[in-house]
């Protein structure tokens, strides 16, 4: 290559300051580095002298770039993302509420972020106290007996919860295998059962969108003495309150099973319903949904699990307890013979505990109740502003989210859910959750699951609904626009089929 290098450049490679970005591996030059390492003040050891043939001979192909290039690369990449701080992010079932900035500050306090999990308990009292206090807040909110903080996300909480259900039955010398799960459930519910060696018995959503008592009765009757329990999401992923929860719990309990509630949608219930006092035996909560720990582009989350009396002995180890001798302070209790064991290393996603606790203590009981009230009001407001244009999946009162289908739109214009979603991007919005939950997508319909959360102002919802309406109107005039959307973005519709057909899952150098 010549010394004088003038690459080809095109103005279209940048759209409004957004640059087409090479992978970090494709940048830089051999030998360049953004590291700042200390000088070695002891003799240097040659790895080969110690490890022989186990010594690495060629360094891994990591990038070779300066800090400047790294900062720019990730700053620029970040600008390709939509985010809550940019606008409404109405992803149903994900509770994309505003993440308070103060959370980020408390989580970074040296007395939290700097604590190593293997320190002596006496040197981590603040961390233990925070975990204890967080658990107390969660107990106050849920009505459970205890709450384990170990699970790393909702699905991990489900795993933990169902493991406790299994352990409970085993301890009683039983091994029922069936778990009732409605078809509206999130995919993690059945997958969790499978991971626990249990079998799913499907419950079909009733005509009104909620679980009907008769179908539960029938399922129980069909599997005598084999009901491990039920997994029930409340409010359901259709945004509806499972009004028969009490009776269902009675039925399942009578059949010897336990009631697992998927609490992913707990944001609809703060101060309104205490599941632990309503027949539920075990429930996970996503701290990254209801309690504002940031979603982080896909985690980390935290899937804490509350349990009623029956399941307390089976909680994972360790759990935090106040010092036994009445002294001030806390300890970790590992001595729990019936425990299901450890769900992971160390104690859970502690950084999320600090954030969730910060949030709860800022709002307090009244504020948390108001959060739920306004979340439900917002969902119903969106419903009121859109239900003349989009088809409501079910007519029951909405809780924290509302699910529409594209039935009418598709019939009238050929424009379907995916197109609406992509066209919303052109209006400056992240699309809602689409093609979920299953009961809403029967008969080839597409579902739009809209969860506005309480942190959105009415004007924002009005603007969003105006965009949704404009899309519907535009679809009648010219369906091709939505079908080729997004149009205002640097990246157009991506070919997902191609990605799966010939998977390219890492960068490889071209030589």
């Amino acid at each position, binding site marked *: 290559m010549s010394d004088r290098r003038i690459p080809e450049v095109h103005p279209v490679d940048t759209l409004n300051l957004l640059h087409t970005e090479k*992978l970090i591996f494709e940048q830089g030059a051999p030998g360049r580095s953004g590291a700042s390492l200390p000088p070695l003040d002891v003799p240097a050891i040659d790895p080969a002298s110690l490890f022989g043939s186990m010594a690495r001979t060629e360094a891994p192909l990591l990038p070779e770039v300066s800090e400047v290039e790294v900062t720019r690369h990730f700053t620029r990449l970040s600008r390709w993302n939509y985010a809550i701080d940019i606008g409404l992010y109405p992803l149903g079932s994900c509770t994309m509420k505003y993440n308070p900035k103060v959370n980020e500050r408390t989580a970074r*306090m040296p007395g939290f972020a700097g604590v190593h999990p*293997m320190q002596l308990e006496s040197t981590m009292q603040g961390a233990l106290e925070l975990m204890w206090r967080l658990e107390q807040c969660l107990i106050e909110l849920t009505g459970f007996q205890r709450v384990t903080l170990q699970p790393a996300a909702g699905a991990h909480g489900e*795993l933990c919860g169902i493991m406790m259900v299994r352990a409970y039955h*085993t301890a009683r010398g039983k091994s029922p295998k069936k778990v009732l799960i409605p078809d509206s459930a999130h*995919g993690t519910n059945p997958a969790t059962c499978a991971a626990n060696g249990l079998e799913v018995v499907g419950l079909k959503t009733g005509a009104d969108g909620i679980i009907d008592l008769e179908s539960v009765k029938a399922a129980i009757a069909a599997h005598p003495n084999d009901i491990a329990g039920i997994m029930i999401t409340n409010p359901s992923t259709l945004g509806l309150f499972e009004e028969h929860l009490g009776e269902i719990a009675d039925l399942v309990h009578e059949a010897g099973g336990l009631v697992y509630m998927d609490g992913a949608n707990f944001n609809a219930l703060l101060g309104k319903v205490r599941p632990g006092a309503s027949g539920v035996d075990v429930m996970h909560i996503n701290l990254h949904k209801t309690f504002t720990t940031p979603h982080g582009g*896909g985690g*980390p989350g935290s899937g804490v699990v509350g349990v009623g009396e029956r399941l307390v002995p089976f909680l994972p180890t360790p759990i935090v307890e106040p010092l036994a001798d009445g002294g001030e302070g806390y300890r970790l209790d590992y001595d729990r013979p019936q425990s299901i064991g450890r769900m992971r*290393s160390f104690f859970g996603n502690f950084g999320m505990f600090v954030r969730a606790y910060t949030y709860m203590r800022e709002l307090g009981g009244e504020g948390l109740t108001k959060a739920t009230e306004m979340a439900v009001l917002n969902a119903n407001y969106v419903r009121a502003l859109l239900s003349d244009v989009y088809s409501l999946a079910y007519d029951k009162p909405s809780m924290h989210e509302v699910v529409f289908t594209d039935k009418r739109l598709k019939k009238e214009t050929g424009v379907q859910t995916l197109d609406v979603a992509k066209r919303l991007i052109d209006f400056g919005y992240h699309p809602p959750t689409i093609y979920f939950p299953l009961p809403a997508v029967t008969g080839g319909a597409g579902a739009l699951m809209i969860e506005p959360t309480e942190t959105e102002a009415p004007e924002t919802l009005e603007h969003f609904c105006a965009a949704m309406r404009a899309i519907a109107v535009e679809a009648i005039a010219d369906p091709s626009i939505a079908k080729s959307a997004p149009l205002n973005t640097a990246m157009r519709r991506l070919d997902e089929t191609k990605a799966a057909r010939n998977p390219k899952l890492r960068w490889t150098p071209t030589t």
Partner: protein
Amino acid sequence: MRYIPHTEDDVARMLRVVGKPSVASLFDHIPERLRAKRPLDIAPLDEARLLAHLGELGAKSRPAVGVTEREGAALSFLGAGLTSHHVPTAVDMMLMRSEWYTSYTPYQPEVSQGTLTAIFEFQTMVSELYGLGLANASMYDGATAAAEALMMAERLTGKHKSLLSYALHPHYTDTIYTYLRSQHGHEAEGYAPCVSFGKDGRVDQGQLSAALSAGDVGCVVVQSPNFFGVVEDVAAIAKLAHDAGALLVVANAEPLAFGVLQSPGAVGADIAVGEGIGLAIPPSLGGPGVGLFAARPEYVRQLPGRLVGETTDKDGRRGYVLTLATREQHIRREKATSNICTNQGLIALAFTIHMSLLGRRGFTELARINLSLSEHAKSVLTKVPGVSLAFTGATFNEFTLALPRNAFDVVKALAERGIYAGVSSRAAGLYRAETPPSTGGTKLVAPDDRWLTLAVTERHDRSTIDRLAAALTEVLR
């Protein structure tokens, strides 16, 4: 409420549009028996008092890691599954960009190319470090990654028996057993007996081949460097495993080791899992971390977790999308390879940024610095009267000393002097002398209560090592 925008007027107007008389009436359909009986009892705090409250809680711990000791951090040699490295400020400054931390799973690729591209880079790095062609978008942590690896191996081989190294981090072993129990009930431990280690601190190859001889083992799980810091002879173990028709899973809690050591993939591992927290963010009581998961590319259909792949957009531009989702729960439901959904995205990003900063040269140099300081510490500390190395095997930046008395007592005495000297393998939550894991009929060496495992890294230098040695001498006197 600064996070809830609704004014009284807003609420009144919205209720009129919704057609409800009151906010309370939005909850009318909740049956009485399910309703909360009393209002919530949690006191609110304004921001200043909130910060003060949290600050006071924080001040009740003495951190292991801080900017200066004057700020209150101890001098820490803690490792044991989490060896904290100095993560440059540029990493956290980047994490604080809200486009990263207030977005979610990149379901809509047109507005998520930032996250998708970063994950693709992360997958590439994990693949490079572990020397295996395939890596996923992250698991919860090293322990759950190990458990998922074992289950993946079960699916691949169809065999339900595994062997675990007894020098595997006890949290990993415990987590594996928890997962196994959910499959196999209380007999779980029988499905995965442990193999002991020798005087060199490595897996006892004799015991291992004996245990493999029946041909019923689907997978062998070892850690390297192992819980005691000793580097395993992965190549030899791989040969034994493969010869017996088993897959080899290598767990690893310190990816930096592969700056100076052959990658697991290069010496025969079929799956490699690890923990990246120490190279990504401060210790944070051990979480959130980031589980690393790599495997041979041909196993892709059995891989748990998310994957990002390359594709093009309508105009032919290169872009990235979530792909091969048919392995996952939201499509496959009960047939999924795992139930994992939300993973550890932001910590994976931190890891990716740090690896980019270190780069090829910095990564290797950092590994050499760790190795050199650790070897120096060994030579200094074994000059303390009564102190010797517990094992003869080579180590990277963590090693185990045999003290002349109970290591936990020594740790406590040193903590009072502001030094977190390391971990006694008999500390709470680690090896339990009373309840050793299933031996599968073989004899396990019980970890000695005089063993102290410590990590020496670039955070240390000659003088801090000397300080430890002096304090240790004093305490042992």
